[in-house]
């Protein structure tokens, strides 16, 4: 399945916050044949334009007003750490970037480096026999096998980055899950990429000019979405973001029940007509969806809302387990249903 191959490729790319060139390059190569135009804004967001017919449709939630442009956005960066220093024995030491919990890093297979070159290693710590306490970030070190500082700095220097190194794999059988690194982040990219490819392959032109934006540095706060929006000047924005669902959760939303349409998040009440339109669209097309009235913790919506003359925002959140860890898990069905819902939204808005 193409959409699975796409997610796998996106998952495997090295791209922590501040070092997203590799993922931008892959998206550019993948989507260039399908887009009408592409640009990169001043903060590095990659933006593809897919032209619409210019006619908004009857019964759409924004009908009756003059709207021209739809912005779909997802972030490219993944959980990671930064290299603070390299010691005399050749061990690079990590500092917090987006992952600051030592227990999530201890012992893990990692890749360290920068946009140009990377090297494999693992995150070392005092063995449990000797540590007698919590694995703190400042006591961890990366082992790449270097024998001293000079050799290590041929591969990795202070200010370079590190991410988890995890194989992409399908778990289970009848209701398969997908396992890999950065799935919470890259699934959003994969959904947007797949939607653009499907629109172009079908030769379908939506009412709006549609911009597919892939932003940077979201995992350390707000992404560069405001700069991208200042350039694109959208009337309506739909944000793709992960919803971090715990194992065996008895909360109001869960994995396996389709994309989540939140009504609120940090600093934003999402646009009610658009959110309800998306929920109705799911029901009409038989795409399972979940609504949520509790914030998922994303800041991009609030930031986008206030951009320029104001942007009507909704969010489509993909349920993913263990977003912050070395191996995240999502239901394949949730991924496929999110693609279907976003595709239908673009076609019918």
């Amino acid at each position: 399945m193409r959409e699975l191959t796409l997610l796998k490729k996106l998952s495997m790319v090295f791209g922590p916050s501040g070092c997203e060139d590799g993922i931008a390059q892959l998206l550019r190569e993948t989507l260039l044949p399908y887009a009408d135009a592409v640009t990169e804004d001043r903060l590095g967001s990659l933006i593809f334009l897919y032209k619409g017919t210019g006619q908004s449709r009857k019964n759409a939630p924004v009908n009756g007003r003059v709207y021209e442009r739809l912005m779909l956005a997802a972030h490219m960066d993944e959980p990671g750490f930064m290299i603070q220093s390299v010691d005399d024995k050749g061990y690079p030491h990590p500092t917090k970037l987006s992952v600051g919990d030592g227990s999530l890093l201890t012992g893990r297979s990692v890749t360290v480096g920068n946009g140009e070159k990377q090297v494999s290693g693992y995150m070392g710590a005092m063995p449990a026999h000797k540590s007698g306490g919590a694995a703190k970030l400042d006591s961890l070190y990366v082992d790449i096998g270097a024998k001293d500082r000079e050799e290590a700095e041929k591969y990795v220097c202070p200010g370079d980055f590190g991410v988890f190194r995890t194989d992409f794999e399908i778990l289970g059988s009848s209701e398969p899950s997908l396992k890999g690194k950065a799935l919470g982040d890259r699934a959003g990219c994969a959904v947007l990429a797949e939607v653009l490819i499907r629109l172009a392959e079908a030769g379908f032109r939506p009412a709006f000019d549609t911009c597919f934006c892939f932003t940077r540095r979201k995992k350390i706060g707000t992404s560069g979405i405001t700069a991208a929006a200042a350039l694109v000047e959208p009337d309506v924005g739909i944000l793709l973001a992960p919803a971090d669902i715990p194992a065996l959760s008895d909360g109001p939303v869960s994995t396996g029940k389709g994309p989540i349409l939140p009504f609120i998040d940090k600093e934003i009440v999402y646009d009610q007509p658009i959110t309800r339109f998306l929920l109705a669209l799911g029901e009409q097309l038989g795409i399972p969806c979940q609504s949520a009235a509790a914030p998922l913790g994303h800041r991009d919506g609030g930031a986008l809302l206030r951009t320029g003359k104001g942007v009507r925002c909704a969010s489509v959140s993909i349920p993913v387990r263990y977003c912050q860890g070395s191996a995240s898990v999502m239901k394949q069905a949730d991924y496929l249903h999110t693609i279907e819902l976003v595709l239908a939204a673009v076609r019918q808005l």
Partner: protein
Amino acid sequence: MTYTEILEILCGTMTVSGWERNAHETVRQHFASRFDEITSDGARNLILLRRCQKENAPRILLDAHMDEIGMMVREVLEDGFLTVANVGGLDRQILPCAECRIYGEKKTVSGVLAVRGISPDSEGSKVPEWKDLVIDTGYTKEELTTLGIGPGSPVSYRHQWTQLLNNRITGQGFDDKCCAAGLLWAVIHTPREELAGDVYVVLSAAEEIHGQLTNCAALAIQPDFAIVTDVNFASTPGMASDESAPLGEGPMTSLSAATDRRLTDRIIAAAKKAEIPLHPVVESTNTGTNAGSLIYANTGVPTAVVSIPLAGMHSYNECLSIDDGEAFARLIRLCITSPDIGTDSVPVWEKGGLA
């Protein structure tokens, strides 16, 4: 066969404590032709004998434990999650999001460890209790049952054998398969006529949960002396330099009241003469190995400990230097070919004795 090839063969088999027999067939398949006898005992030890074919030759016992740390399934939950218990010393605070393999009777499947009801946070996660640690399998309860996964199924970390710089590798189960590989290499690379005695390689069971099972093998073997081989701490950031050795600079031996010092000193002297680097490390009363019990076997077994430094012991990734493994293997070969290493270990009554 190179040292690395042997290590790869051993690490390709899951041997969580209790499941050591998994490796017996693998070892027989690859090494049967190199030994005179191979037998397994009731304690799940595998004993491989290579005779020197000399009269009244000493019997040399070489021990490496075959088991590795892991987990065991306790219960299959309704939605296909598994609860688990530890087998050996795992650090549960590093388990959330760790990848693992679950060994069913019909199929081995992958899973991810998680904490019930809690998303791992980017900072400050609490140390989970074992009762809250679950494995996310992606299967339904019925499918898991069909695959033969249920209470008692063994679970190990998911292997990631990776080559780092300077001939270092990371993976899992190196404790203690890196020593077992060295013992096998040493014996199969020694012509029979060069052996200083009959060599019994004991690939022992259950060291990670209680140890002591080498003693069962020792009762059958009646060795004149023994070398217990296990991993020891590599010098990594935070580790005291006097209780560890740097990776890539050779194997280690323990100076301890709980081992035979004369035997240890002879090994150190032989290594020095042969220019094999060997780091003595002080472990005054406890080496944390099978040697602790083996010295009490039978009428007492003079025992020394020789080790390979290992970083990340019992962690998700363990790391060793292939150079150290190869130097260790050469040292073991030296020990089993030097006639004077195991001398003066047999008790002799001077005035007629008990009889």
